[in-house]
């Protein structure tokens, strides 16, 4: 959920105070785990290339959803577009041979490299596929955000 900056600051300060108290009194605490496998937005890179293929039938062992094959100067990249790229009233529209830029994170899963695309840029238009945590944005979420004037 989206919370205000004030609420976040309050939460951070509260947590800091609690942490300080805990350190002071050396209470042994075991926290719930942190997220070690998050989509790390700080590791995002942008690849430029030409669309060489659009894969809509997912092969076993690959991320479910649409994939885009991008021919870059470094070779072909398999970019996962997620589960909703081609759904809804405002789907992503790309064609083979089109020049695009994709921004995301390269991940390796079970020996396979896949580029987790968060945005696709063609011309001046940027299409957002995933949020900053790497979660797919559904058409309904896209419509609700537009109605509320929120950016994706």
């Amino acid at each position, binding site marked *: 959920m989206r919370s205000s900056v004030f609420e976040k600051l309050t939460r951070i300060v509260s947590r800091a105070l609690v942490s300080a108290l805990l350190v002071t009194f050396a209470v042994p*605490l075991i*926290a*719930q785990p942190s*997220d070690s496998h998050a989509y790390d937005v700080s590791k995002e890179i942008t690849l430029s290339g030409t669309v060489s293929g659009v894969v*809509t039938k997912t092969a076993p062992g690959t991320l479910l959803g*649409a994939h885009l094959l991008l021919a870059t100067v470094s070779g072909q990249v398999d970019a996962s577009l997620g589960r909703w790229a081609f759904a809804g009233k405002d789907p992503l529209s790309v064609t083979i041979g089109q020049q695009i830029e994709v921004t995301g994170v390269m991940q390796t899963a079970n020996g396979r490299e896949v580029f987790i695309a968060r945005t696709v840029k063609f011309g001046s238009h940027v299409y957002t596929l995933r949020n900053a945590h*790497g*979660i797919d944005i*559904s058409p309904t979420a896209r419509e*609700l955000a537009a109605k509320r004037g929120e950016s994706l």
Partner: protein
Amino acid sequence: MSRRIVGSALAVFVCGVLSFLTSCSSSSSKTSTTTPTPSAITPVSGTSPQSAQVGAAFGTALAATVTDSSGSPVSGASVTFTAPSSGASGTFKTSGSATETDTTNSSGVATSSTFTANMTAGAYTVTAAVSGVSTTANFNLTNTAAVVTNPVYVFYASGTEVPNASTNGSSTPLYYALAGAVAINSSGNVVSGEEDYNDGVEITELDVPITGGALTVDATTGQGTLTLQTANTLLGVSGTETLGVQFANTDHALIVQFDESATSSGSLDLQTSGTSSGSNSFLLSGVDSGYDPVGYGGVYSVSSGAITGVADVNDDGTIATGNEFTATAGSPDSLGRGAINNLTINGVTLALYYYNVGPETTRIIDMDVAGTVGAGAAAVGSTYGQGSTTFTNSSLGNSVVGLEGDPFGLSYAVAGSIITTPTSGTFTGTADDRQDSGTAQAISGTYSVSNSVASTTYNGYSSLSITNSPLANVASLGVYMTDPALNLLDPNNTSGGGGALVLDLDSVLSGGTGIVIPQTDTTSANFNGTYALGAQEYFAHGGVVFEFDYLGQGSVSSLGLSGSGLVSDPFAFFGPSPALYTDVSMTGTATPDPAEATNGRYTMPLVVDAFTASPYDNLSLTIYQANGGQLLFIENSAVGFGSFQQQGSLTGLPANRRPVKKVRQK
């Protein structure tokens, strides 16, 4: 004289005579165009007071007479009937809600459609109002408590709604959740019931009366359908929902929605007496107010309706652990439904309702709608008792673990087994995710049972981290311990108990949930006998991810499965068009892992022969055996998660025991 002049003269003469008798008017008369103004509205004799049993229709439709200042009836006036929006109340058949507008007839009488009591007993007033009259006609109605002599079954499910212009108005699939309770007589007829249904944006229907239906089950296999009739045309097909059911025993069935309005998986369980109290664990998953995946998990205690607890939240990738909360539990109605009030977790207010399954199990459903009721949206889950156990690291022994993604989150499924070392809080094990294409992965990590928040230790509030990271993204889990005597898959089953609920705390896997079951018997010879099975699956078509669900029954002998089932396929995974498949052959042979004696792992190609010559009939299961009666699996051809549950006795099932009509859509 022309014919026109003669005609006009005749009309004036006739009207003049009639107006003397009945105050006749016509469009050509300029002396009597005034529409009578309503002056009073009164109930028609015999329509008030009335009483009806909860869930039943009142015997006489509500009717009110509208008159003008001279006491003459006013025709064509709009009369709005309004019943209370909460508590004891009811719904009108035509509108499917607590409000309905009807027009007076030539006698000045407006008559409502059939009015059906909801499931809350009590007296209340329905008003009838007409514009221009300050007072209302009042109908004194009473919902009388049901004398429940028929068994009540509680059901819940979540999945994907099919786009439909006349119901959800969406062009893309929507998440949805439903939960409810139905009383079924010995002939298999639904005699009463209620349900809550929520897709979070278009259909949020609270406490919908279930007025009829039937449970039809094959007496040998326990497979069949349960129809639920409502007056709400937004639900199912014109108000009737059909669930596919696969009974594991008389008290428990796997269910899928089976009517092409939606597809989902869940369960149906016999309600036993008792209300949840003491300490509990809970899980809830669905979508938030932005229609992004969200999951909640935690522990809480209840005392005299007062709830205190702690919860972890993974909301659209933002993880907040250790959120302490309070709430109050309202009293249940005659079918065990009640509200959980004043619940705010991590700044999000939830509009939760519960259905009691028994003293240690409830189903819970979030009935927000895009932030207009609470601040959440739609979600469904369960609460389970913790018994009197004080949980320590030793409480989490060798176990089977299974997880699956939220229908609107990333589609993933994981199953595995772990061997724990309580003294060090570490584990090793084996697990599969869908992306490893059937290759077992060695896992290891740490865990901690009964953690603290703000110097308060919460019993059973636990965590587990997979630190060597062989699985795609699954690494951090919230774990919430449950009563070692409570069977999480089949809460009325006195065997197979123990384990925990699991919330995925990896940000990209927001909404993912699962369970832990003690692994007490990996003997392959005990994976034998008759089983109920079912799974929820996701697949990509045209690059977009959709859902199909199935359940079945079969016998396993020498690790060979032979059975049949139902497949709900409204997005056309198996065939060229949406279909509901019945009598689907399901066959396969399980191959034990080389280390099966330790990890309980099998692989099984499962042929689900839904559509002739379909290239997609060959599913691929990886199975983990907790014991001979409970096995969890993931499916790798699409992305699926399901279970095998050994069948017990079906004697005494309150069902029409005709075999399900065998219609295969091929």
